[in-house]
């Protein structure tokens, strides 16, 4: 049954990357508990627009938890308090009437705030560009069934590949480390036979790029794993570490 609640929002407002931001307080009234968090923000923005104030800028696109574009820190939790949930899939039924909600952007040196809650996550693209691919050109590939892949391996690779690149792992990590993101991609491709030929090169360059971009160092706090909307496991980080040592000690990649 639909019910409505009233909320106080403390939202981070920042005009641009170079201008210092701060919190502003808004009231969200008559919010249906069936709404998603972003729909609640839509309602607030509609009111701000009508009141001749500038709406809150926030990133979002698919609103079904798969594109990875949305994400803010809700009361200290990236994507909010629900486990395995993106912000667009967080529903207001998880909040109570009268709650005060603090909404901040993902924060990391590698993620610059562009405006309000919108951040620049292109650093994650740069890491993928450093090696998060299999070097095959279009065409000329063998038949899809030519190389059997054990089901268990395919499933593990899929577990890692489920990453939506939202950056919540970085946002939740006390050290703003991107190890879960990188570990997931390295794992996916290191597990599959198709990715093995360039595994050493891949892990070396991806880790190197990650370090250059100003992400922090992993200290195994496991916040990333607990916060990841796709519940990607830190076993992927362990696998990346193995791959990294193997590449460093036994391959000719420098």
């Amino acid at each position: 049954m639909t019910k409505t609640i009233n909320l106080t929002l403390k939202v981070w407002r920042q005009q641009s990357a170079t201008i210092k931001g701060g919190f502003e307080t808004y009231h969200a009234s008559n919010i249906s508990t069936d709404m998603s968090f972003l729909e609640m923000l839509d309602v607030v923005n509609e009111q701000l627009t009508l009141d001749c104030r500038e709406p809150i800028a926030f990133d979002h696109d698919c609103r079904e938890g798969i594109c990875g574009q949305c994400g803010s820190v809700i009361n200290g939790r990236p994507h909010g308090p629900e486990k395995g949930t993106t912000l667009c899939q967080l529903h207001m039924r998880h909040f109570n009437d009268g709650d005060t909600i603090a909404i901040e952007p993902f924060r990391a040196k590698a993620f610059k705030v562009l405006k309000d809650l919108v951040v620049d996550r292109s650093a994650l693209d740069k890491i993928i560009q450093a090696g998060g691919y299999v070097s095959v050109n279009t065409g000329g590939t063998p038949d899809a069934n030519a190389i059997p892949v054990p089901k268990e391996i395919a499933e593990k690779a899929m577990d890692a590949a489920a990453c939506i690149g939202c950056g919540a792992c970085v946002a939740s990590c006390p050290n703003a480390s991107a190890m879960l993101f990188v570990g997931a991609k390295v794992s996916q491709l290191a597990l599959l036979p198709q990715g093995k030929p360039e595994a050493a090169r891949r892990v070396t360059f991806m880790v190197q790029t990650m370090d250059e971009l100003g992400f922090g160092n992993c200290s195994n706090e496991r916040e990333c794993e607990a916060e990841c909307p796709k519940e990607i496991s830190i076993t992927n980080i362990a696998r990346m570490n193995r791959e990294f040592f193997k590449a460093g000690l036994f391959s000719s990649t420098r």
Partner: protein
Amino acid sequence: MHLDAKIPGGPLADKWDKHKFELKLINPANKRKFEVIVVGTGLAGGAAAASLAELGYNVKSFCIQDTPRRAHSIAAQGGINASKNYQNDGDSVWRLFYDTIKGGDFRAREGNVYRLAQVSGNIIDQCVAQGVPFAREYGGLLANRSFGGAQVSRTFYARGQTGQQLLLGAYSALSRQIAAGKVQMFSRREMMDLVLVNGQARGLVVRNLVTGEIERHGADAVVLCTGGYANAFFLSTNAMACNVTANYRAYQKGALFANPCFTQIHPTCIPVHGTYQSKLTLMSESLRNDGRVWVPQTVGDKRSPDQIPESDRDYFLERKYPSFGNLVPRDVASRNAKEQCDLGKGAGETGLAVYLDFRDAISRDGKDMIGQKYGNLFQMYEKITADNPYEKPMMIYPAVHYTMGGLWVDYNLMSTIPGLFVLGEANFSDHGANRLGASALMQGLADGYFVIPYTIGGYFAGTQLPKITTSQSEFTSAARTVSDRTQRLLSINGKRTVDDFHRELGGILWEYCGMARNDEGLTKARTLIQSLRSEFWENVKVPGVDMDLNQSLERAGRVADFLEFGELMVIDALARRESCGGHFNEGFQTEENEALRDDDNFCHVAAWEYAGEGKDPQFHKEPLVFENVKLTQRSYK
């Protein structure tokens, strides 16, 4: 205007090979002298940009999102078709071709569809080589499942995230080319205008969505991979940023728009539950493999579904279509759901839902097996509705999902503007009046990986392309038009928000140009849209400034185009005096309430030419010639 589809001659099976041979080649050293703009980074755009760069072309790729990994192709759940016949169940290129043509209600080109079926297998090979983790059997070989509109198992899948995995495959190939310096990536850019020089597509004017700057980019050809226009309906399963602006601008610059009224309503979506709702969520059609669709037998039965005994349930799809049952094509499933709800048998508070029940499948295969197949979909459903589908049947209702119509292209995927190519959902070519499940991913990747790399070379080899600069008058005037329009939107300062207008437009289209249409409603819709449009330009309120990250301004521009484009959809729907696939005009139906085609008069592509602001578009016809299949009344009984 004569519409020449340039379908190669000869037997159907040889057309593509023959055409590939006949297309002139560009030698590798010369390829790097050409520059190609690709707009959009979904399956078609990502695949095209990567493949063209691999060949040696210099590519500029644009996307509206913050990174090229987020386009809405990512949300496709169920799978991708390919005629591999790995299951030994009688599949073949011919069967996939036939299923697709028939599924499209005989309103697609034979030549294009056959090519699609031919390259479908290569797509799977390509994706596997990229490291896409498709589902596998214990023996390590690829697994398949069946899907709506087909009686063979030819759908490859990666859990419920097939679109995501395929897109990440294309994104990885694209990333590799970005790193190699062959693709220049421009994200958070929105295409605002297409620039023609001497009648050829030679560049773009884009808006930098972070700074608000208007940028100009020149090239030797432009490839639009900008997706569909389902968001004209406001509520659809498309992502929030999906829009028609790029395609509409091409249309205004002279590209013909084909079959805009062909929109697909997907049967298995989570029902609407409030006016504030911003989008609809699709549950993969694959659910219909194991889920049974039903409503209560009697009108007004408001018992909770577990209280309704077997004898009081009507499994209406199984009853009406014994051979396909719950796996009838999307349009048939959707229309039947609406019909049941219109009869008053709908489920839930709103009465606008039918049940999709897994009880029998769970007792047959066990909860684990069903969980393995659909676990993430069930989880998603529970997240949104707070109901557990393992215990309580899902409630579903149709929602706008895909648009078969799009910019008119020939066999080379080139529009009526030389040098403007259109790929994926943005073109009209392969799905006719209705698209089968698991075919959108196939088409996007086929166009991007396996068609455009050949056909663009043929264009370059046979075309004189004079040198241009972005400071010449065509670019300057396009940039000025864009700035003027932006200023105009910002200066109205009316009383209604952009979303408010969008919601009203969506309501009009859903009501009168949705699942079932009639002449009276369509005529009314046209007037309503016209008056809404004029109100928009007098009363919309767009806050903020242009040189800034301004999301209201972005939406305002898109809604302004939807308000024009919506009318084109209605005009096309009115002109098509038949029912076929996704276009169901109540005036044209069989006695069993099925779509009644008029093959004598409407076996054609309706392509519309922009005639100027406030003028009715001009109609052009491309007759569809069927040499290999016999046109039949689609029957899934």
